[in-house]
Structure formats: C-alpha cells, structure tokens
C-alpha cells in the first residue's frame, strides 16, 4: 500500500471553500485542464499596480486538485503578478524532486504526492491556470500602455 498520500492537511485544504467560486468583473480568467482525467481549474483574477488583489478558483476534480487550488489561492493574494510563472515552475520542480523547497511553505503538505507521478498534474493545474491568468492581465496592461 502506498505511503499515506492523503494526510489531514490535504484533506482539510481540499474541503476549504474560502476562495472557491467566481469573482465578479475579473481582470482576467484562465482555465487549465488535465486531459487525461478531465480535471479542470478556472481562476478569476483582479490586479492593481502589478499585484494580485483578489482571486477565486472554480475547481472540478479530485481532492488533490482542490487542495492545491485552495492553497495557491490563499497564498497568491497580494503577490506580484510577475511571480505566477515562477510559482508554476517551482511547483513542478518540487514535485519532480529537482528542488527540496516547495513554492511556498503551505504547499509542503503535498510532499507525499512527489512519489506518485500520475498525480503531479492534479497539483500543478491550478498553478498553470494562475500563470495564464496573470500573463493575460500583464499582456492586457502592456497593450493598454502601448495605446497610450
């Protein structure tokens, strides 16, 4: 039997509905999915002065997907838009064992997932959606600046 993948902290995070749902009038929305299992995370984002001021996620998927989305959503609020890509890379590196540090401390609860390769995507698709949403806010802002 596999080492315990579903620790208390993951189960709790998976049930956490604090940032679950949609935002009204988001600055950007992005969806990422896992074609192999159909899981899907949609992230709505609001930003100001290059920082994430608010975000919410709608997640269809397993407990790991929900837990990762909830943890990421709590962490990301208030962070610079520019860090979203780095978070995405750091999450992958952490799961694949290329780095010992989680992208942020709370994600350390996902440590048991490292050994279960087929579940890595469950954790990373929320990061994918956030990175895409952040990129599209920044692109829109640059576009707007360009027009000035």
């Amino acid at each position, binding site marked *: *039997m*596999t*080492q*315990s*993948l*579903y620790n208390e902290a993951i*189960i709790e995070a*998976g049930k956490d509905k604090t940032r679950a749902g949609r935002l009204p009038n988001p600055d950007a929305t992005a969806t990422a999915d896992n074609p*192999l*299992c*159909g899981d899907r995370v949609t992230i709505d984002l609001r930003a100001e002065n290059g920082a994430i001021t608010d975000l919410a996620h709608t997640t*269809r*998927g*397993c*407990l*790991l*997907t929900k837990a990762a989305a909830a943890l990421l959503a709590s962490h990301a609020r208030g962070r610079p838009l520019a860090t979203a890509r780095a978070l995405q890379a750091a999450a992958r590196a952490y799961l694949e064992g290329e780095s010992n540090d989680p992208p942020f401390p709370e994600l350390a609860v996902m440590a048991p997932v490292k050994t*279960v390769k087929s*579940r890595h995507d*469950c954790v990373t698709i929320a990061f994918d959606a956030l990175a895409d949403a952040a990129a599209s806010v920044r692109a829109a802002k640059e576009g707007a600046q360009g027009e000035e």
Partner: protein
Amino acid sequence: MSPAPPRPGKDLRRHFPIFRHAREPFHFLDNAATGQICDEAAQALLHFETRARANVKRGVYRLADQATAAFDAARASMARYLGETEKNNVVFTSGATAALNIAAHGLARRLGPGDEILLTTLEHHSNIVPWQLTAERQGAVIKAIPVTDEGRLDLDHLDRLVTNETRIIATTHVSNVTGAVTDLGRLRRAADAVGAVLVVDGAQRAPHGPIDIAATGADLYAFSAHKMFAATGAGVLWGKTELLADFEPLLGGGEMIRQVTFEKTTFAPPPHRFEAGTPPIGAVLAMAAAADWLATLDWRAIAEHELGLTARLLDGLQTLPGLRIVGPSGLQGRFGVVSFDIDDIHAHDICQLTDQLEGVALRGGHHCCQPLMHRFATDATARASLAPYNDTDDIDALIRGLDQTIRMLT
C-alpha cells in the same frame, strides 16, 4: 486423463506469477484495463525471446523455421479459441485498437456520402474514433444506439436507428464500464435486414473463455492479448474470408506484399496483407499459449464464481452512503464489471485511498468512454472488474476500503 482444472479463486491464482510474488495485500480489481499474465503465457514469451528468437515468415535455418511454425500454430490456436477451423481468418495485430482501425479502414470502401455507421453509447473510444476517421474521409454519418438507465443498450428503437443507409453496425460485446452483455442476435438480425456488416469489439469478452464466433454472428471481431492474461503488445482481428479479401491494408511494409516495384505494388492475401513488418512475435506466441490454457479451464464454474463475487460486491456497495452504481444492479446478462460514483468524492480519490488503505487496485476515470460518462452526467466513475483469480477477500477489502474512504473524505 488430464488433471481437473484449477478451481476459480485462490486455487487459480497460483497460476499467475504476480500473485505468487506479491508481498503486501494485493487485491487486483482492474482486470478490465489489463489482466495479469498467466504462467503459460509468461513462459511462452520468455522462451521465444530468450531461447528461440528469430524473425518469422522468411528464414529457413532451423530457429527461423521453428519460429515460423510456432507463429503459424499460434494462428491455429486463436482460431480454435474462436471455435473456428480456418486459421487464415485470424489477423495478428498489436491489440484491439489496431484491429478495430484495420476493420474501419478496410470497410471504408463500402461507404459513400450519407451512408451510416451505427455505433452505441457504450463504446470504448477505440470503437468510436476509428469510425470517425473513416466516416470523415468517406463523408459517412455516425449514429449511436442509446443506453438505458441500467447501462444497457436500449434496443427499443432499433428499427428507427437502422436504415437503408446503414452499412456498418459496430458494437462492444461486453461493456468495459457497466459489464452489460450486448444482445448480438438482435443486432445481427438488424444488420441482415439492411445488408450491413456487424463489427464486434470483443476486448472485454475474450478474457471470459473460448468464444463461439459463429454464434456471435460477428462479421469482424477484435480483441487484445493483455486483457486475456497474455502479454502486452498483441491482439487479433478475426474476419470473414470474403470481407478480409476485399480490405485494403492500413499499413504498408515488409511481409504484407506480393511484389513491390516503384511503379506498382501488389499485396499478399489475408492475413499477411494486414501484418506489415515484423509482428509482435513473442506476444503472439504468449497469447496463443494463454488461449490454449484458458480453453482447459472450467468456464461454467468460473462464471458461477464470478457472479457470486459480483453479487457480493453489489450487496456491499449498496450499504455505502451516497454511492450510485452506473450499470445493471442485477446479475442477468452481465459480467463482473461494476462502475460506481460516490457523492462529492472524486473517482481518483476513491482509487488512491482504497489502494492506500487496503491494497485494492481499482480504476477511476472515464474508462475511454466519454460519451457514456456524458450519458450518466459524470466525468469519471470508479470501477471494479473481476477475473477468475479474484475471490471474496478482494471484494471484502474493497468494501472495507470504500467505507473508510467515505468516512475520511465526507
């Protein structure tokens, strides 16, 4: 006199190396995805690859001659497993998927614009996508027989679905999600009424003992070796002589030709026409060894055993809160494949936790049956699927695991 066949369950389990070697509780209930390999198949595979390896169909030195003879005998074995004597109607492929693609490609020339291919909502993607590729090329139309709330084909309106334009009816023999057995007799008559070809996906039937292909009424029949307790990488397309003779090959290459020039190439007759390149020789010999061994088992006893386990499983599942069975709730006209979902718990969480808690191997997902998932308004189900080596310990571990999973996650 040959010895009595092993009894289903724990006795039979001893003929499968993986169970002899398992150190931890190992309740393998993912047989619809792949069966475990039996000793006979493993030995045939290992013998060929490590002691007798030579390419087939060409060489004359002893090793090559023996390999060719064994390959030929394997064709006869597979014909026998299908209750047939003509071995040249057995085409060796890399699996059921390849077999269905060869069929869909071969039948393409019978299709013109507006002609219809009738599938079913139970189908595996491997019996949908090849027809879509063919339909698109020929301008044909795809229709699908609907499914009842019990996960069976709904044949009530078959008369309306089968039209004068129906050229092909392609159906699974046994559903890999609900375990329902298709009423092939009904479909055969419907096909005959309009002169359509009946293609049967036997991937989930082949592991359940020898098949009487004539009784199925199939014109073409496909299955995979790895699901029938042999190795990965081989399968069969069985086809009626006249049909195969008329098929264009899907793949070109060595061993499938009669004569090659840059101007014009002529093809060998079936089955060679469809076996381009070096075949998966080891896996084919393993499949034949498995088929020969399976033919010695007591399938009446196995069916009874598996239905007993299915009843125990259905009973156990029905005690669990929030659990819905996607498929027949009874034991008639079904095999031991049972899918279900649980309120608010994702199928992957169910599978991960039952493995973690009780060592149960269960599959979760869409099972390559997205149209069927859509029919049942779900993204994914969990599925337990039985083989002759399963026993009550497997079922009980599953129910225990599910019970704990539900407590943990709700």
